[in-house]
């Protein structure tokens, strides 16, 4: 459908008062070059052809829209559908903007890629496209995140990327973005910063929206095909907000469709115990853009807490801040405990393993469905699959057998090295 101007950025890259380009002078030429490249690529049939080819044959699009019959029956209300981005290549929606941006990098003649990652899914997708398109790949990851998402670190390295743990600050996603920005500031002449969410200085939020919007477009056509209606609700988890923007974008102008973003409620509502920016965050400018930020009274950015590394972030993409203030999207949150429960529920009832991040959206669907009539439809964007969370699930969900295995395996590993 034709996009109206309402949710588009202005000439400075602002959505309402949010977004913008708050970057050091040294990055301005690169941001301008990227913007020009993006604008010309969108109009280039060859670029679109290459993008569509990669979406189909490399990513595996369209990803399925799956009716969760068992879970819907069990909850006894609205029908729940799952948009399974976990079945996209590399296991999450991140590959959508990675493919798009690597094609832009190629167009600009850049050979070196720098990226940040939280849960490792953006890093994994970046490492994969770098291997495929012959680029030198450097991924910054908070040291804490590198530990809790160790499987993704291993695979990134196997794909040829250098993974650099960041020991500053809270050792999380925010610190990884910071470190990646500094790398880009240093190596801006030959590097592209393959930023992994709808955030950062303009034009990054818009670029990632453009490459992610395919998710919502597919949801719409798949649901029309399966039951000839639009959804009544579309729900997605929100860290920086790329999967949610992808799922929501197509429906922004469809006022009948209610959109819900779910933030990380972490350990609870106390300050410093969660990453719910709309519950205690305030307008600020950090990491190149203006949005809601969790910060103290003086403007120092606060540490966050979430079981999901991908949502454990103090800022939120600027379009979300605008959609929040406009009342177009409602934002709720889910706690770590609810999230673990939702992962289990989905696995047991539908045979699908959700990433911890995506399960935040599921929590909201499980809350909402029983309150709605059976003719209502909820679509949850399952942004990623759960295999990466083996060690976290192993600790929280399994019996002692997983722990015993890890201990025994570690012993054997040690011995085999000697």
């Amino acid at each position, binding site marked *: 459908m034709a996009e109206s101007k309402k949710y588009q950025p202005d000439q*400075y890259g*602002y959505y309402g008062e949010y977004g913008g380009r708050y970057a050091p002078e*040294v990055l301005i030429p690169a941001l301008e070059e990227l913007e020009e490249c993006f604008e010309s690529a969108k109009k280039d049939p060859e670029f679109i052809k290459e993008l569509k080819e990669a979406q189909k044959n490399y990513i595996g699009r369209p990803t399925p829209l799956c009716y969760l019959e068992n879970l819907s029956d069990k909850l006894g209300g609205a029908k729940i559908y799952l948009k399974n981005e976990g079945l996209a290549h590399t296991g999450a929606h991140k590959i959508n903007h990675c493919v798009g941006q690597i094609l832009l990098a190629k167009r600009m003649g850049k050979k070196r890629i720098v990226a940040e990652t939280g849960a490792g899914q953006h890093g994994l997708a970046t490492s994969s496209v770098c291997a495929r398109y012959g680029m030198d790949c450097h991924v910054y990851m908070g040291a804490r995140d590198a530990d809790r998402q160790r499987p993704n670190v291993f695979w990134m390295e196997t794909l040829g990327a250098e993974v650099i743990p960041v020991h*500053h600050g809270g050792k999380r996603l925010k610190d990884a973005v*910071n470190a990646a920005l500094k790398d880009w*500031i*240093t190596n801006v002449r030959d590097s592209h910063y393959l930023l992994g969410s709808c955030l950062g200085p303009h034009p990054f939020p818009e670029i990632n929206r453009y490459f992610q919007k395919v998710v919502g477009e597919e949801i719409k056509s798949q649901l029309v095909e399966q039951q000839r209606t639009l959804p009544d609700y579309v729900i997605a988890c929100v860290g920086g907000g790329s999967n949610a923007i992808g799922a929501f974008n197509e429906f922004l102008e469809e006022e009948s469709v209610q959109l819900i973003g779910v933030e990380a409620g972490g350990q609870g509502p106390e300050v410093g115990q969660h990453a719910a920016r709309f519950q205690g965050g305030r307008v600020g400018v950090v990491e190149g853009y203006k949005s809601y930020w969790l910060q103290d009274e003086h*403007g120092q950015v606060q540490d966050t807490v979430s079981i999901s590394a991908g949502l454990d972030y103090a800022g939120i993409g600027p379009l979300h801040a605008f959609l929040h203030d406009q009342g177009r999207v409602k934002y709720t949150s889910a706690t770590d405990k609810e999230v673990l429960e939702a992962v289990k529920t989905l696995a047991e009832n539908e045979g699908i393993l959700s990433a911890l991040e995506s399960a935040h959206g599921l929590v909201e669907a499980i809350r909402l469905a029983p309150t709605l009539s059976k003719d209502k439809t909820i679509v949850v964007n399952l942004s990623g699959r759960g295999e990466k969370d083996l060690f976290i699930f192993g600790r929280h969900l399994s019996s002692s057998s997983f722990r015993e295995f890890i201990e025994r395996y570690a012993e054997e590993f040690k011995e085999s090295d000697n």
Partner: protein
Amino acid sequence: MTTKSRLAKALSTIKTGDYPALMTHVVLGYPSLEKSIELVQVMAENGASIIELQIPFSDPMADGPSIMGACEHALSEGVTPSDCLEAMAKLSSKIETPLLFMSYYNLVLNQKGFAKAASDTGCEGLIVPDITPGESKDSFFTECDSENLPVIPLVSPITSETRLKQIANNSTSAPFVYCVSTTGTTGARDKLPEELPAYLNRVKENFSVPRALGFGISEKKHIEQLQGNAEIAIVGSAVINLIKESSNPNTEVANFIQKLSKK
């Protein structure tokens, strides 16, 4: 003399071709608020022509490991932007050396009326690397203008000719232009980039005000190399590193500043 004329006076004595004047830097709160205030006095007494006082921020995008570490330390000391305004007021009443604030935009944005407050304390200019004129709809630049508080423009070696002109036009009241020596964050480096003279010459063609070169200056020989190419040399991380390793920072900083500031 009002504080407002100190910077103009200091800059009026600087001539192209002379040995560059020295601009130094502290992170307020490093190693402690008291000691950083003392260090500013030490710098002023030993030859610094301009001193920038950095207000520590949790996420200093343009700073390398030395200053970033100093900011983390200062924040752990509990230093707030209000403490920094008080420190500025105290220092500007004690010393004649012109003082500037350096910080990041989020702190400025969070402190309502920051431009006025800074100006009232005797601060003579702001360096805020994450907001550039012409790129933002915010009222920051006009607020500073109405307080006669200059925002120092920054340029880099990859700033195009067109942008240099734009920046110069957008900052007509700038007392000097801050030239970043290289693509990168702040931090001491072994040598200055070779293309520096050509770059600084391009800056001179677009700006009529003195050029201050920063990022990577850590030794006297760097400053000597700048003679004729820049009117001011900025030393930041090198002093932080010195403080970090020293048991008697005031004396060592005094000696270092003396050595760097005299031909």
